[in-house]
């Protein structure tokens, strides 16, 4: 009895901090979401709006497009990073690769660069008429690459930038997972007559599931919240081609000071994220005995 009380005592500071910085703001956003509140409006006070914000949201094409765009973006980058990360992890673990130690060390460098700096760097690389990327694309392939005017170019560049920044994280995490795999089942699978693809699919993937799940979760959450990098790169443009949901909310809440509507958007986005994570979790742990 005494023991468990002391346990709670130790947990108290963390719980308190979590409560103050996590739960209270959440309740506050929930509260604000029911009001019409814009500090630059004629009436800058909170006016009760009921569910009006949410009803507007459901018909707000800009918001819905931004949400869909974000999901597409997140899906593409997470899947690509997983594939690319796995290939890189296997390559960096292969005995025969020349300079393996060196690459292992430097490949993690992008992770430590702040997103804002990544965005700025890529902006410099891509600026039309200045960056080297448009220059060489024109020179070698004759492509008129312009992230300020071409929506596809901007969206593609945002994806490539995310791959550059975060694939090393996936590689690192998969390398840890692969290293920790027991060797014997893999050898057994060879003896059982499995070719490389079969061993990968039937043995490595299921045994790697906990690591895969964690990695996908982390990357998905990050990708859904991607703001600063893209802001530096394109400011969400051209038009709204790269205006992901985080950026969209930020634009509404800060430059536009539309707090009530922003709060409602945040909550709806949170809801979508939770459902998505839950689906993912169910899909990956659906079979018993897999992820332990």
């Amino acid at each position, binding site marked *: 009895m005494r023991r468990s009380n002391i346990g709670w005592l130790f947990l108290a500071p963390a719980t308190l901090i979590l409560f103050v910085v996590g739960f209270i703001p959440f309740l506050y956003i929930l509260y604000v979401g029911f009001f019409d509140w814009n500090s630059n409006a004629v009436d800058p006070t909170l006016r009760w709006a009921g569910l009006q914000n949410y009803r507007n949201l459901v018909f707000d094409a800009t918001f819905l497009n931004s949400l869909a765009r974000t999901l597409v973006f997140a899906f593409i980058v997470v899947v690509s990073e997983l594939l690319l990360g796995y290939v890189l992890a296997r390559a960096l673990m292969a005995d025969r690769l020349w300079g393996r130690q060196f690459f292992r060390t430097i490949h993690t460098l992008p992770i430590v660069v702040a997103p804002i700096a990544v965005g700025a760097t890529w902006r410099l690389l891509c600026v039309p008429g200045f960056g080297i990327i448009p220059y060489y694309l024109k020179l070698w392939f004759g492509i008129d690459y312009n992230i300020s005017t071409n929506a596809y170019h901007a969206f593609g560049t945002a994806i490539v930038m995310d791959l550059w920044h975060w694939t090393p994280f996936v590689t690192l995490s998969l390398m840890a997972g692969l290293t920790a795999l*027991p060797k*014997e*089942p893999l*050898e*057994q*699978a*060879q*003896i*059982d*007559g*499995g*070719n490389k693809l*079969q061993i990968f699919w*039937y*043995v490595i993937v*299921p*045994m790697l*599931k906990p690591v895969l799940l964690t990695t996908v979760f982390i990357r998905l959450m990050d990708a859904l919240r991607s703001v600063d990098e893209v802001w530096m790169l394109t400011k969400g443009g051209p038009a709204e081609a790269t205006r992901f949901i985080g950026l969209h909310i930020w634009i509404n809440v800060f430059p536009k000071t539309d707090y009530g509507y922003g709060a409602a958007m945040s909550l709806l986005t949170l809801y979508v994220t939770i459902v998505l994570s839950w689906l993912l979790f169910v899909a990956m742990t659906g*079979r*018993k*005995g*897999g992820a*332990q």
Partner: protein
Amino acid sequence: MATIELDKVDKHYGAYHALRDISFDIADGEFVVLVGPSGCGKSTLLRTLAGLEDITGGTIRLGGQRVDNIAAKDRDVAMVFQNYALYPHMTVRENMAFALKLRGDTLPDRNAKVDKAAEMLRLTPYLDRYPKALSGGQRQRVAMGRAMVRSPKAFFFDEPLSNLDAALRVDMRSEIKALHQRLGATSVYVTHDQIEAMTMADRIVVLRDGKVEQIGAPLELYDRPANIFVAGFIGSPAMNKLSVKIDLKSNAARLADGSSFSLPPGTRARDGQDAIYGIRPDHWILSRGDQGAPATVELIEPTGAEILVAAQLAGQRVLCAFRERHALKAGDTIALAVDPATAHVFDKQTEQRISP
């Protein structure tokens, strides 16, 4: 089922020479046991047979076909690992059926084979469990079953029983033996348990430092070890090895204190040659008369079936096992005699056997 032929097999790990010039043949349906001290290359040899390690020289043939250059998956052999290596994410049934699934057997086919093997191994109640919910012995049986369902060309076992307790080990030992008799599959079995080796093997291969020391039937190895190493390795408690000088005039092996034992008839020795005179502990004869070498009893350990007596004989410690209940105590002087026919003589230099 198939024969296995090894010809001058060599294996290097970088500069380390793990297998040296190993050549022997295994007949179809034979049960061969590999023994040797830890690190001598037993697992390595087994893994090269299975295709999990490349060899750096020589050839391996399986059923007449050369396999040292083909991958493990194409060799059609089964292996049971020391820690079973079950797939943690598959049920017992899926574990056992996995190889069948990979090679494209139909589901009813797979199930029939698994059910049959499970029945044989008394695993039927566990077919839907995951490995983590099985005991060591059950896991071991799953690993066996997984090998059985495939009817492979050969079975390889790497110390499959070493994680089990003594009683279970004895059980599983006879089960594997019975299984082998029923299936008649060519098997190679690694162990460092003497009893396992002696009871299960058709032939035993003794390895040391990556080299074959002797190959032979269990009793052949016990009765006629080819060199000092095999003599000391096979048999428990180990053979006594006395340093002696050969005295051809009196056809005897002379100890440092002048006492002597007769040489086995037909021993090829030079006069004055340094030799090792080997006697198994249970081959000592306690003589009350004046024949035999005098020894001082140091320690007495009754085990029930026999009495183990450690004694000093001409400055060397020897171990004797007597079935009779001699009334002995520490400090007694006894006379030890030997029937020369049961003795083994080895050249001290070459360590090779020189008695017939």
